[in-house]
């Protein structure tokens, strides 16, 4: 069975570590990036199928990062996690190609459910 790998892009150290602990505990292999640029470097070397992106990142935003990931890796599934959600932002997120949208503080069980859903979807695509 192939490893289920998740890339978390979040500039807050504490939150990054917490996500990594939670996903590892649930059996996923997790990599973290502090910025959109770092995330794109990682994707070029080793693409990830499931990503959690903070929207408010330094320099390039999570929305722009999602656009670039969806362009370069169309099969990847991105989830947005944000500290502030205006309706305007939700529309932008859907437009950028996010699968779903979570507002902090989000329960870990919701993040895990999203990961399970995404990997099931990817498995189904692979079987066709």
């Amino acid at each position, binding site marked *: 069975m192939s490893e289920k790998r998740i890339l978390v892009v979040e500039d807050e150290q504490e939150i990054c570590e917490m996500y990594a602990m939670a996903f590892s505990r649930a059996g996923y292999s997790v990599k973290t990036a502090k910025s959109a640029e770092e995330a794109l470097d990682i994707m070029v070397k080793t693409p990830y199928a499931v990503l959690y992106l903070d929207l408010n990142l330094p320099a390039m935003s999570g929305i722009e990062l999602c656009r670039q990931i969806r362009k370069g890796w169309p099969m990847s599934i991105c989830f947005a996690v944000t*500290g*502030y959600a205006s309706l305007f932002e939700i529309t932008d997120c859907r437009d950028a190609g996010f699968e779903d949208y979570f*507002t*902090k503080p989000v329960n870990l069980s919701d993040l895990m459910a999203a990961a399970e859903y995404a990997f099931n979807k990817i498995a189904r695509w692979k079987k066709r």
Partner: protein
Amino acid sequence: MKVLIAEDDITSRTILEAILTRWGYEVMVTTDGESALAAMQQTDAPQLALLDWMMPGMDGPAVCQELRKLKRWNPVYLILLTSKSDRKDIIQGLEAGADDFISKPYNNDELHARLLVGKRIITLQNELQEREKLQGVLEMAGAICHEINQPLQALSGYSELLLMDFDENDPAFATLKKIKSQVDQVGQLTRKIMNITRYQSKPYLSNGKIIDIERASQ
């Protein structure tokens, strides 16, 4: 809508009060400039005022001038009632801060129409003010939510992770549950703040006002 009348002549005052009441205005009557100025500074004062030019003591233009100096939280529309019709006088009145003139003897239809103009301007100014306030509230809400939700996410996540490590019979488990529940409550509050769509305040202590998060986010 409330209207203030400042008129020293009893006949004119009584007629004005009767007409305005008939037109549906809530009328506040004063007999000189000083009391008009004081009435316009009260909480919940009228935003529309009909001021006679010639009054003993403080005259109409002087009331306008003083009112314009005040930092009122809401706008006012001031109409001067005058028998003066010289261009020089009109300029002086407008420069003092009046928005409009009505010449005595006035025609009722004209008075009605001019009051409606005032009402329209005030409504527009109030709407603009509400919009500016809402914009300020939304910007503040955004900043607060973002700053609070970040540490809240770490608190919520770490307490969830800790809960997984403890046995349900461990006393620490119950304590942790309480922490998590309080964190969730703050999370619900920030969600409400994010749903604010209108400016809605409520009284706070004696003179203060605070945003009514419950109603503003409905």
